[in-house]
């Protein structure tokens, strides 16, 4: 069947806009700061064959894993009917980690299945050992919270109250969870409504054929891009930090004609630490990189993946098996998988690949109980330095690669939680030196005012550094500290859970990005500008950039 090219364009725009609109509905009707302030959620439309067709620009790790999750889920469901909505968070099925709850709705038009719509949102708590459900000391997935297998949260457009009750009884902040789940339901209904409008206006056949064409176009773009890379084998490796030691992630990318063969063989075996990633996460990372090198502004869909063959040995940290804990997989390991893929491609695509970015999301979960025994939790992630690009400095204080959530306003946090902020500033000297400088990280610090609480920090690049490229220096490592009231300083490892007492100060310094090119080749005006802006100190200017007598240079 032929679709008029103009109609194609109109439907394509309609699908992408629907995802955007549903994302706003989800944000505006949500209750937890993580969704309503930080937009830690994503919306998508899939073809009846369960391929991701359209999405809004939300969070790469959510979206790349969504079709894997929906496919696994639907394979396990029987008798799915019009008016049903399915809820699932089991990472081994849904694709990320337990706090991400996925809601899926089949869309029927005149009795015929024409699409699936889905959205994923990160809930601030789903039970488990520690508030925020990302305990650094988890050794199996059961420590990380309630596991929801694929079940119908809605049947015949009626919410199944029993399932909701069961979920809410297992979380620390049930009121908030209920509100967020309802917001997710609203978002799916908006998506459904818009898909039905398009089917009604242009016909369901035209709609579905457009979906096929969208996938084909993305595939074609990807193949065209790959065929411009010199054939060969490109390898990369890097370490993700576990509690007990560093774990290797290895990739070999073979470029053959217009196809990529991506093989993670040689990667460390899975561990009893929450650093394992499920396969959905690894696929999301591959999709992210493919889109970034082939078509950054085009619509993201599964078409790109058709030109790539991914092999990740089962039982490794990039394709874990139950019951391994996985809460850090899609936030931390995902960032490192991207680093490794970029490292490998740096030789294949010179002039395009940046130095390593901060390589973590600096996940912070805090929680406790107030005097009335009512639980509170909040979760946030903190930006850092972006790796320098060929011809361009890395951006300072920003989220990189697999995430793009916003910060929580300090005034919101101070209003609702027993903490008071001391600092939120750029971290000088953290960006790796180079002809092009890596972005600087952030320093965020607060004092705990509750009587007791629990802090989980899931971060990385504490022992290692984001690498530079072509002579660029690495960015600074992360530093996560708790300063007790008596002055004792506790240095936290990459995955830590720790009790907080009143008056404890939490200091989080996020990594900088790696530099690109020889620092001695950096334009003097840029060095002076960095110095004047307080992003690079005099010592680094003298030692690394080789400008000893800065004062003289500063005189007009």
């Amino acid at each position, binding site marked *: 069947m032929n679709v008029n090219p103009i109609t194609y*364009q109109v439907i394509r725009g309609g699908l992408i806009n629907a995802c955007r609109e549903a994302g706003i509905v989800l944000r505006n009707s949500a209750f937890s700061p993580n969704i309503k302030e930080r937009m830690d959620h994503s919306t998508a439309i899939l073809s009846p064959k369960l391929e991701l067709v359209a999405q809004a620009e939300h969070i790469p790790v959510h979206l790349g894993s969504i079709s894997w999750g929906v496919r696994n889920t639907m394979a396990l469901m029987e008798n799915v009917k019009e008016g049903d909505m399915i809820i699932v968070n089991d990472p081994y099925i849904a694709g990320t980690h337990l706090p991400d709850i996925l809601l899926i709705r089949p869309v029927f038009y005149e009795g015929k299945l024409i699409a699936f719509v889905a959205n994923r949102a990160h809930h601030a708590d789903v039970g488990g050992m520690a508030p925020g459900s990302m305990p650094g000391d988890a050794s199996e997935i059961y420590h990380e919270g309630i596991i929801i297998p694929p079940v119908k949260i809605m049947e015949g457009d009626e919410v199944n109250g029993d399932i909701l009750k069961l979920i809410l009884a297992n979380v620390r902040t049930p009121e908030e969870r209920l*509100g967020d789940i309802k917001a997710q339901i609203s978002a799916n209904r908006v998506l459904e409504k818009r898909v039905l409008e398009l089917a009604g206006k242009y016909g369901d056949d035209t709609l579905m054929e457009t979906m096929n064409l969208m996938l084909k176009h993305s595939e074609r773009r990807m193949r065209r891009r790959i065929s411009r890379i010199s054939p060969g084998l490109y390898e990369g490796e890097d370490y993700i930090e576990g509690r007990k030691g560093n774990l290797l992630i290895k990739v070999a990318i073979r470029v053959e004609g217009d196809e990529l063969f991506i093989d993670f063989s040689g990667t460390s075996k899975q561990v009893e630490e929450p650093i394992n990633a499920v396969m959905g996460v690894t696929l999301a990372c591959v999709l992210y990189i493919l889109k970034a090198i082939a078509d*950054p502004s085009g619509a993201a869909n599964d078409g790109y993946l058709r030109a790539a063959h991914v092999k990740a040995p089962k039982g490794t940290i990039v394709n874990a098996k139950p019951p391994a804990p996985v809460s850090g997989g899609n936030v931390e390991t995902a960032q490192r998988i991207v680093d490794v893929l970029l490292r490998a491609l740096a030789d294949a695509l010179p002039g395009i690949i940046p130095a390593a970015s901060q390589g973590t999301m600096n996940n912070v979960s805090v929680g406790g109980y107030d005097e009335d025994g009512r639980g509170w939790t909040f979760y946030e992630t903190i930006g850092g330095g972006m790796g320098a690009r060929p011809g361009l400095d890395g951006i300072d204080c920003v989220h990189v690669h697999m995430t793009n959530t916003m910060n929580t306003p*300090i005034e919101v946090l101070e209003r609702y939680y027993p903490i008071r902020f001391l600092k939120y500033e*750029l971290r000088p000297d953290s960006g790796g030196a180079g002809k092009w400088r890596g972005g600087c990280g952030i320093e965020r610090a607060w004092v705990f005012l509750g009587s007791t609480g629990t802090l989980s920090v899931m971060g990385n690049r504490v022992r290692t550094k984001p690498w530079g490229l072509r002579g660029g220096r690495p960015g600074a490592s992360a530093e996560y500290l708790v300063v007790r009231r008596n002055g004792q300083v506790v240095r936290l490892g990459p995955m830590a859970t720790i009790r907080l007492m009143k008056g404890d100060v939490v200091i989080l310094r996020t990594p900088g990005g790696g530099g690109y090119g020889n620092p001695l080749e950096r334009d003097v005006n840029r060095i002076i500008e960095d110095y004047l*802006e307080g992003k690079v100190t005099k010592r680094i200017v003298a030692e690394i950039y080789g400008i000893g007598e800065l004062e003289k240079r500063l005189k007009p």
Partner: protein
Amino acid sequence: MCALRLGIDVGGTFTDLVLYDERRNKLIIRKISTTPSNPEVAVLSLIDEVLKEYSPNEVKLILHATTLATNALLGQKGLELPKGALITTKGFRDILEIGRQRRPALYDLFVRRPKPLIPRRLRFGVEERVDAKGNVIVPLNEEELRDICHKMRKEGVKAIAICFLNSYVNPVHELKAKEVVEKEVPNAWISLSCEVDPEHGEYERTSTTVVNALLMPLVAGYIRRLEEGLSRRRVRPRLLLMKSSGGAASAENIVKRPIDLIESGPAAGVSATAFLSKVLGIRRAISFDMGGTTAKAGVVIDYRPRMRYELGIGRIHRGEEGEGFECIVRSAVVDLAECSAGGGSIAWVDEDCVLRVGPISAGAEPGPACYGKGGKEPTVTDANLVLGRLPAKLLAGDMTLYPQLARKAIEGRICKIMEIPLIEAAKGVLRIANYEMANIIRLTTTERGLDPREFTLIAYGGAGPLHATDIAEELGINKVIIPRNPGNFSAYGLIVTDVRYDYVKTLLVKLEELDPGRLEREYQELEERALKELSKDVIAEDEIVTVRYAGMRYYGQSYEIVIPVPLTINTTSDIMALSEEFLREYGRMYMQAYQGRAIELVDIRVSAFALSKKVLPKLPSRTSDIKVSRRDVYFIGHGLQEETPIYRRDDLAPGFELEGPAIVEEYGATLVVNPGWNLRVDEYGNIILER
């Protein structure tokens, strides 16, 4: 002696004048090229034009819309922002630069973030702290502040923004800091966050305050030069400026809050729509403005524009990437959606062989290919010309279009690549442009839970009438109005606008805990403030009106819904009524509501208006010869209509009727009447289209 009302709209290309002479019941329209870095030059030459016919003391009122603020923020040459500084709570000076820690594009490895409005070396932290409840935790260190002042003086800072954490709860330190800074840096403009935007959210408040501070010297200087120029001409009118809210304010007030000017120009068009909808009794209207580079849509319900309270200023603007800044400003703004589809928008084929329109525009130079000024790219105007929808002569013959150039551009850049015939390509360009434009109307209606089919489309701007019936069909709208002089409708909006002041107060209280007496008192206090401000700007014949709104949400949410509130609140049942209104609106927007969940009153809002006396002049009915010519025209979705009748609008007197298909041409605009539409001219000369 009767007063003259002058409306002057400074746009990107033209500065428009609309003058209403009440005595003669006459509208006069003038156009002149804008003088971008000194906009007052063009404004004053228009005044000189007026003074050829009238004496200076007849000019009693000038209403003025200007793009000055926006252009400065977008980095226009000649309008450089002054050297500014920011004072924050110590430890938080980078809030402005970190923003919300997001990158502007997700997958682009070469993404850039625009530079912050104030460089880091001019952002200073000072020791002070107020907690979230408003308690002073650390007193303001005035000595440190004086040191900072010393540095600012040395640097020659001209504008200073002060924004401390939690100052929206307790502004004591900001007020104190202002006293010190005023004394220490006497020649700088100072903007306090607690005065400009007293709401929570430190980044947005900081950004708003900084933008305000930086615009102050620029806008003050402009207004001073303008007033001096007027004064030299012995013209001493009441000078009002159009705000983004669609209301006007005195020059004196605008100098204090220049952020209110950012959407000044577009707001004028919506203001005109609001007035026209009131005269015609249309309770639900869509304001649709299509010009050369962009199209804008807004919604007017019960004769008032729908508002929003946050505005992002981006790098992509008017179809071109600027060198300016990216920032957030919180201020009352008419809720507009904008897309880069205008007459000059370029159509192109991407590497997947998909036809696209915009965002790049051919602008005025070289303009569409058919202008014959060297443009090689096909544009929306070229497609309209090829399809016979535009005449070969525009602006009463002052401008000639070249159909063969339009054909060549479309054939070369579209037909060859896509292997489709000329007519199909031209229709494709219009269908895509129409889709984009229909989409911005969806953004302001369906996405807000409103059904566009219940609305009347009021279409204006040079290109609005060309596409109006197509877009109406796309959205299921059955009534379209084309006002008189659609190309000058925005400027006309100026002379029918009202003085307006908006006040907000954050309450953050659960409805169930709210005492009706207290709510009434809070509203009255805001109203008193508003009326006090207004009293400086009104003249005797103005009618004063205040309107109340409330921002409400479920307790725990972050995004409130703004609903209208009755003028007096006495009892708990009045509060119950608020809650019911909220539930209705919430259900409409999110397709579900909660039972028994607490509702929070976030803030109360008062808008105060001084309604001026204004009229819509009637069009004298006359019998004149109606000249009809004919040509073949392609209609979108209706195919080729041979020998379509072509009318001249000037011939059409009140009461005239016709059935589509037809084309109606006038100075500066061409109307396409699709088959199936009935046209009539009302007593004011508006064209009413219905199907």
